């Protein structure tokens, strides 16, 4: 039973490496969309998806390196990603981020 458990630990390591490779390919596809994107909104969508992929990357790295220290980084990337996406969306909508004109 204990040998089976050790086997499963190795299988989880291998599967996380396979998942890392698949996520790398998916980030490559999203970078193609960032470069091609007909409008700026397409680029914003692809950048948002890249950020979410990087969150999953950090979680998988925590599994491969067997350390719980990456958990803060996952949360931090999520918060920064939301702020960045909102900033890009407001810039696309209004043309500037901070309204300096006096009414």
């Amino acid at each position: 039973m204990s040998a089976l458990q050790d086997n499963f630990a190795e299988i989880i390591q291998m599967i996380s490496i396979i998942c890392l490779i698949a996520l790398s390919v998916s980030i490559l596809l999203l970078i193609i969309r960032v470069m091609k994107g007909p409008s700026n909104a397409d680029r914003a969508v692809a950048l948002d998806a890249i950020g979410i992929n990087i969150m999953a990357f950090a979680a998988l790295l925590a599994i491969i390196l067997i350390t719980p220290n990456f958990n803060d980084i996952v949360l931090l990337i999520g918060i920064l990603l939301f702020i960045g996406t909102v900033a890009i969306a407001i810039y696309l909508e209004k043309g500037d981020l901070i309204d300096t004109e006096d009414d």
Partner: protein
Amino acid sequence: MIQKTIDIILDILVIIFLLGGTFSMFTASVGVLRFPDIYTRLHAASKGSTLGVASILIGACIFHYTEYGIISGKLILGVLFIMLTAPVASHLISRAAHLRGAKPYGTLKDQYQEAIDKEKRRQKQQQKSK
């Protein structure tokens, strides 16, 4: 004996969560690359990526439980945060794109634009009556 069986079941759960989440995120990025216009791309990116990253984070949480016996609240908070913010962000992007004049692919009628025009006409009439 029972503890070992539970550990093995949790390991299988981790594998299922990781593979399912990766599949979902990969199909989401293929959708972002292949779909024809901005709204369908948003549909793929926000839904697929959210499901995928939630699944992978839950898998990592279960892995930490089996490895150290801790339940990582930060990963669960990350799942909750993504579930809260991804719809808001995609809604903002789609509104900005519509304001910049992105046309929906293959549709003849734009009901959102009609509603905006109706609201503008109503406001003009109110200003005239004042």
